[in-house]
């Protein structure tokens, strides 16, 4: 065999290895997240004084009442349907009365707003008296003990990801048209960046876990290396915005550490978001029928991407606030302003994302189908108006499902995406060897096609699946979060990312008649990548372990005790 053939075999082997490695990486990330969740051990115990029933308190925020939908169900007709909320904060356990008729007595004193409770306190609701005990008092045999495999070490995981990016870069170096080692420059910078992120997280900020960041690094890296054979300039921009996104991620995690602080800041954040949109409407640039860009200095930014963060922020809240202030009005008004502004700018893709996120948040908050139906009716009305007055949107509907027939006109992009996905096969034609890269917006709106063509359809599906997995993850940690603020924001963020990925993937492949949104983490686009990283903070914060390390440390210092080892971190939550 001559050398050329051997080299071709090596290149093809690398192409086949990449998706296989990607499967292992994505599996390890999510398996590790799952293994990190706490066993079903109670945080504290409630003892029903008369029935002697032992009730474990499993969540950080618990609704208590007669209704079966509560976290803690009391079988006593004198107790309200939802009577009180029992919450845990850094300062200890709190109790809030949810407008009950009978009221709440703690050690015989009436309580309405949040009040602190301690071990051995007696809580009287209706005719029932609950006594607070240490969680460890609960007999062990009632626990479902799960035996996990050890989660993968964060260091090893990041090594695997770096190796994956290295293989990708190697393939990119030997593209058909040009063979040089230029792709190693962005690879080097990006790898340095991701290890810096690792260092800052693990060593300076003392985080216990790094999976969420690993996933984002893995996906962003794919986007960066894909770009290096397409447009080296935007490749470097992508790396810089990735760094900004990482900083935003770290700041946001810090900022949302205290769920009660968020409540105070809600209106400020709403104001900033509305200001952003107004600025966009006033100074926006018109690009392809959409006016969703503003220019600051030499940079163009897309404010609607940042408003997404504010939107989740404003939407979610803690359980006692959820139950006492059931009114969604201010959130609905904020939504109307956001979607109205996006309509005005002609950014219908993002407007749709906001709308679906609104549906998710409002349902998570209220569980009310009426709101959903009303909102959907409004959406149908809005959609009709769009089709009536925006001919280019209606044109896209005309070619929907027949992209190949309109390959030279309305279905130009979609037809090429389909053709090049099929041309790529399962393992792709190699980075830099594709033809889709010559089609406009291939690195953003059509990036699913670009990945399918150059890295193979298998890789593109793995990326889609890794985004879907975020929903399953965020649902799995719902009752393990430190507040419903985190669970709602995590579920809705995951839902938003999946919906946005859906619009991107199905729009490009002619399954849906829409285009113009980015594929989270992969698509080129500074504002998009920053917003994705920042949104990831909500998912990261949903895991109670995120804030565990720091607290463990302060406590250890204050009590002059030995630092407990990692695996037992939840043993040392107790409440003095």
């Amino acid at each position, binding site marked *: 065999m001559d050398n050329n*053939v051997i080299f*071709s*075999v090596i290149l*093809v082997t690398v*192409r086949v290895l990449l998706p296989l490695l990607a499967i292992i990486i994505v599996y390890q990330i999510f398996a590790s997240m799952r293994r990190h969740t706490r066993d079903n051990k109670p945080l504290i115990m409630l003892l029903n004084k008369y029935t002697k029933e032992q009730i474990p308190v499993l*969540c*950080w*925020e*618990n*609704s208590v009442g007669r209704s079966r*939908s*509560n976290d803690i169900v009391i079988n006593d007709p004198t107790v309200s349907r939802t009577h009180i909320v029992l919450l845990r904060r850094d300062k200890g356990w709190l109790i809030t009365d949810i407008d009950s008729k009978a009221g709440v007595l703690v050690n015989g004193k009436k309580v309405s707003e949040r009040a602190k409770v301690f071990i051995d306190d007696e809580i009287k609701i209706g005719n029932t008296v609950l006594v607070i005990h240490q969680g460890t008092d609960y007999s062990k045999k009632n626990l479902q003990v799960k035996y996990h495999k050890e989660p993968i070490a964060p260091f090893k995981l990041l090594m695997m990801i770096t190796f994956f990016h290295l293989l990708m870069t190697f393939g990119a170096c030997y593209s058909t048209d040009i063979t040089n080692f230029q792709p190693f420059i962005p690879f080097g910078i990006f790898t340095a960046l991701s290890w810096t992120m690792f260092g800052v997280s693990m060593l300076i900020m003392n985080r216990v876990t790094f999976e969420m960041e690993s996933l984002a690094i893995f996906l962003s890296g794919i986007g960066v290396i894909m770009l290096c054979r397409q447009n080296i300039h935007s490749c470097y921009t992508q790396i810089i915005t990735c760094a900004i996104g990482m900083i935003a991620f770290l700041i946001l995690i810090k900022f949302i550490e205290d769920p009660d602080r968020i409540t105070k800041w809600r209106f400020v954040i709403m104001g900033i978001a509305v200001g952003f949109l107004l600025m966009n409407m006033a100074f926006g640039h018109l690009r392809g029928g959409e006016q969703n860009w503003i220019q600051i200095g030499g940079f163009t930014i897309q404010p609607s991407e940042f408003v997404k963060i504010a939107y989740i922020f404003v939407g979610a809240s803690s*359980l006692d606030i959820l139950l006492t202030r059931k009114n969604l009005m201010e959130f609905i008004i904020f939504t109307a302003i956001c979607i109205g502004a996006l309509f005005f700018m002609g950014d219908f893709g993002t407007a749709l994302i906001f709308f679906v996120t609104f549906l*998710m948040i409002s*349902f*998570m908050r209220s*569980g009310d189908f009426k709101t959903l139906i009303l909102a959907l009716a409004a959406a149908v009305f809005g959609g009709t108006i769009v089709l009536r007055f925006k001919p280019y949107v209606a044109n896209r509907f005309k070619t929907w499902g027949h992209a*190949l027939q309109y*390959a*030279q006109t309305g279905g130009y992009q979609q*037809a090429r995406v389909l*053709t*090049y996905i*099929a*041309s*790529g*096969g*399962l*393992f*792709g*034609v*190699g980075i830099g060897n594709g*033809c889709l890269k*010559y089609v406009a917006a291939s690195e953003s709106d059509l990036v699913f096609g670009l990945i399918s063509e150059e890295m*193979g*359809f298998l890789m593109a*599906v793995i990326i*889609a699946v890794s985004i*879907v997995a975020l*929903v*399953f993850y*965020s*649902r799995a940690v*719902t*009752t393990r*979060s430190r507040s*419903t603020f985190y*669970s*709602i924001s995590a*579920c*809705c963020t995951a*839902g938003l990312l*999946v*919906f946005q990925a*859906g619009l991107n*993937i*199905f729009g490009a*492949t002619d*399954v*849906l008649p829409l285009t113009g949104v980015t594929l989270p983490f992969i698509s080129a686009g500074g504002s998009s990548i920053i917003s994705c990283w920042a949104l990831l903070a909500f998912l990261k914060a949903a895991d109670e372990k995120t804030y565990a390390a720091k607290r463990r440390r302060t406590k250890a210092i204050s009590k002059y005790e030995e630092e407990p080892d990692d695996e037992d971190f939840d043993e040392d939550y107790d409440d003095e």
Partner: protein
Amino acid sequence: MKTTRRRSLFILLLTLGFIFGLCYFIFQLSLNNGTWVNQPYNGHVNDNGGLSQAGVIYDRNKAVLAQTVNGKRTYNSDKDTRKAMLHVVGDNSINISTAVQSIFRNQLSGYNMIWGLGLPQNLKSSKDITLTLDSKACKAAYEAFDGRKGACVVYNYKTGEVLCSVSCPTYDPDNPPVITDKNAKQYDGVYLDKAISSAYPPGSTFKVITAAAAIKYVPDIFSKTFYCNGKKEISGAKVTCMEHHGNINFKDALAQSCNIAFADITLLVGKDNMAQTANQMGFNQSFDVSGIPTATSNYNVSNADDNELAWSGIGQAKDMANPMQMAVIMGGIANGGTPVMPYMIEDQSPAFLGLFGNNQSGRLGKQILDSDVAAKLNDMLRYDVTSHYGDNMFHGLKVCAKTGTAEVGNGDPDAWMIGYSQDEDCPLAFAVVVEHGGYGYSVAGPIAVAAMDAAKKDMAQ
């Protein structure tokens, strides 16, 4: 928080929608990937790029029709052969959509769903294709066209092998023309394989179908006499004949192609029986030749009055016939009522098994005629040649045939000739159409003869 978790089912539902969409797309991809790849704008397959590792295309005698040498696609060394084979073989582009290099470009260039077109050139496995066609017969037919437009099909009605399929105008695939406003007329229809993808008014050749219907549905048709004085009024409009045949019987009416007699015969058969017979003989439906679909021949009299019905029986009105279809009808008559379906690609290469179906040789089509009707038509078509055209023109072959001169409205009529040879060792059925050629017998005939002569010579070797 339990409630929060329960409500998050809504988001899960949305996610299931996403997963469903992804599965739907994967399903679409696995179903249509071949079509999606085979697009003229695909940078991976279009131009030389897609054929730079493609396999060889041979004719039945292993003459190379197309091959790739050092990454460059070249065609047969003889210019007339290249031009004659263009519409079957195709060129570097995908302009001729029914050509083998267009339809099977994926397989020729080693495309499959798993590897896509992504393998480096030196790892791609290309496949060769052998055609059933005889490039010498095609060349002879092409030269006989002598610059006129039209199509010629010759196939072996015992085995189904297509020996000659030529469409004019054509061009040299080694040197494709740039079509501009100036030469648009010269190259009008050049990207169409007229043997496969066109349908023409059949003119008098359609009388074969009318005769078949008459034999079946009019019991005493052979004893009837018709009167022709050149024109006749039916339902207030005229039907005309080129000659005054006077009193004429059924057999001579077909041989001398009398329009008046056949107008009367059509009315005797009736609308429903005419439509029934035409449908049974393959009108109003398409069929595949080695996976390449033919244009549909058309016979529709559902809204016709008697005058239009009369014209439809002599191949005018809305009648349209595809040359390949007419050749199959001839093959069907020669075979006693059931045709062997034509095919163009040999099933030699095991890699092609399953792609083109198993052995296509001798694949019978649907019965188009009762065997006694076929036998009587066989006699009548033979009588056409012996009484009218003469055996001389066919150079020793015992041919049964029918000519046609179809009025097309603009310019000279289209000239047709369809038929077959009865010779056991040279069982050929043919259909030739020459656009604006004039009289069928003298114009279309020699082209069929040229192709059959060449094919016969090769078969004898």
